[in-house]
């Protein structure tokens, strides 16, 4: 009897959650959006940037009157970069706090379990940073990756550019090293397949655990390979460690790209003595001077609130801001914050964001492509494709100073 009662209450609470999370018409209460952010652990740098981006969008949309006439407020909870904690957080946000909407956390690693919870309760799950292939191959239709391209294609611009070089200029060999992370590893696997198909010989390839803290032995092995092109699947700590070790070893590949880290502006360059970052490349979906929807306003608001310069703004913040922009436009079309309607709306139409225009396929994958950014003269500049480039790529990469 007691078991039956407890089960009954649990079922009522569970079924009640999506009911509380819909509609929105007529209420003057603020719309609460639940987000789990990583303020500790491996993703803490990115998690903080995500929080900043979300908050800036909330301030922005509230200044315009909010969503469907209601102010927006975020409920942020810390997951400490833990896949267990992120599940608990979304479970609590939905069933205990009854948030109206949910936005995604940082990384594919956390998005995968988090989106399963959101989907179970019928919540739309737009997210800024979970673009690994496994995010989309689980048959969920509620998850939307708000970046220009699926993660697996993040290095497509880089490989296209390298293979477009004249044959005598093209690198003959390449070395690959990546964390065993669902964000980085698929990018490198795809890039290696494309470059090998294009005739670039693989001379070194290694996958290392995401928990690795001492990257120097791996960097030494990459340097020893003397590859013409070096392709690395990194976050900030390893991105910095590889560059430092290459400088110590006087290893100057003709081209060096890292999947993440160099896009973090000052967070990357201020850890490298003398800002010795010239020529390092990174794929990106956003940059500060882009003439995209709301980008000027976003950059101004970011600098006014958090200080620094445009070059130090993390792309993570812009990606989080874009999530808000996409949802704002979808809600504007359906005049509701009902999650089922929102999911349907997000599967159709094109959305304007600070990262450019984007649309989502039936799995929630974006259909655009990212571009190539390079550190030149102490700042990041888009260099490929030509449509977005503000400077030609520096190739070969200048020797370290």
């Amino acid at each position, binding site marked *: 009897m007691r078991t039956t009662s407890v089960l009954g209450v649990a079922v009522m609470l569970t079924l009640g959650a999506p009911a509380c999370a819909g509609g929105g018409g007529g209420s003057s209460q603020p719309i609460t959006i639940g987000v789990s952010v990583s303020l500790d652990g491996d993703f803490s740098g990115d998690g903080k940037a995500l929080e900043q981006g979300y908050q800036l969008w909330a301030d922005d949309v509230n200044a315009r009157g909010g969503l469907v006439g209601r102010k927006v407020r975020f409920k942020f909870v810390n997951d400490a970069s833990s896949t267990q904690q992120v599940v608990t957080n979304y479970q609590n946000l939905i069933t205990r706090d009854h948030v109206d909407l949910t936005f995604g956390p940082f990384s594919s690693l956390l998005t995968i379990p988090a989106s399963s919870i959101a989907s179970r309760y019928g919540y739309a799950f737009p997210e800024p940073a979970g673009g690994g292939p496994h995010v989309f191959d689980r048959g969920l239709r509620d998850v939307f990756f708000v970046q220009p391209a699926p993660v697996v294609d993040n290095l497509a611009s880089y490989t296209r550019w390298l293979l477009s070089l004249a044959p005598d200029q093209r690198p003959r060999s390449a070395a690959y090293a990546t964390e065993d992370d669902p964000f980085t590893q698929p990018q490198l696997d795809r890039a290696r397949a494309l470059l090998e198909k294009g005739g670039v010989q693989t001379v070194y390839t290694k996958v290392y655990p995401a928990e690795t803290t001492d990257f120097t032995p791996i960097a030494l092995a990459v340097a020893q390979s003397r590859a013409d092109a070096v392709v690395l699947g990194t976050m900030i700590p390893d991105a910095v*460690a590889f560059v430092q070790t290459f400088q110590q070893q006087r290893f100057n590949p003709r081209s060096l790209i890292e999947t993440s880290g160099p896009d973090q502006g000052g967070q990357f360059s201020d850890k490298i003595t003398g800002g010795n970052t010239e020529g390092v490349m990174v794929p990106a979906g956003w940059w500060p001077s882009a003439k995209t929807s709301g980008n000027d306003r976003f950059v101004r608001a970011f600098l006014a609130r958090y200080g620094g310069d445009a070059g130090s703004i993390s792309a993570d913040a812009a990606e989080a801001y874009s999530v808000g922009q996409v949802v704002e436009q979808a809600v504007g079309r359906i005049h509701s914050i009902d999650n089922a309607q929102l999911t349907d709306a997000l599967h159709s139409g094109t959305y304007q964001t600070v990262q450019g225009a984007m649309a989502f396929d039936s799995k929630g994958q974006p259909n655009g492509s990212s571009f190539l950014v390079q550190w030149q003269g102490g700042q990041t500049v888009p260099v490929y494709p030509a449509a977005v480039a503000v400077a030609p790529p520096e190739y070969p990469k200048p020797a370290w100073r």
Partner: protein
Amino acid sequence: MTTLVLEAAVLGVLTGGVYALMASGLTLIFGVMRIINVGQGALVVLGAYLGFVLLRQWHVDPFLGLLLTTPALFVLGVALEVVFIRPLRTDRESLSVLVTYALALGIEGVLGYLFGADYRQISVWYDTATFQVGGFHVAVVYVLGFALCVAILAGLGLLLYTTTFGAAIRATMLNRAAAQLIGIDVERVSAIAFGIGMATAAAGGVVFGITTAFNPGSHYDLISRLLTIIVLGGLGSLRGAIVAALVMLVVQDVTAVLLSPTWAAFAFFVVLVAVLVARPQGLYGLRVRERI
């Protein structure tokens, strides 16, 4: 390949020295007080932040800054021992784990409040300076760090083996109750040992902060490594901590370049298990028989 393996082995020895320094405080504290200071990793991170602030705010070279930070952390360590550890009269071994874990969380929280979650790194002008040995470059900063560790560990060895106070520490490590019976002020010895442990953490933290990007949460990985080192070396053995740190880093670094980074930690644990099967007390630990 030979050059690469040799290079990895040299790197393992140099970074092993730094881990030896960080672990020496942990093993000393265990030896004297029979407590596991799980806050040692957080203290290392605190040392890294202190070095970072001295350089960023006052342009003090982090190695020179140790003249300020190690005495400061020594005093802080003594104070923490008096306030948090000494009052534990019953079930001291178990409760101290909770207290020092709380200490770690407190340090992490304060650092998070002051510096945020961004990764930092102590960026010194000579961190890309190298010199050539054989066919490869050795980073000056690793050699400086190793030299610092050797100097501090040698100083610690001299203190332990050539001074009266060192004899008191060793007596307390050997048998706390007996040391008390022959008139050694074990409370004082404990407080000073805790202070020394914190001071070594501060010194190790500076080298860690120069060679690795860190944030307030970096201590979790560090403490697991440090605990593994002192288990391999033998709980309470300074010499064991040094040898174990060198073994750990050399095995891991060589495995990383020879086989794969994925197998690096596993290879070390194979060594650890093999040693513990043969010598359950670790490389240099003392076998204790208890009458029941």
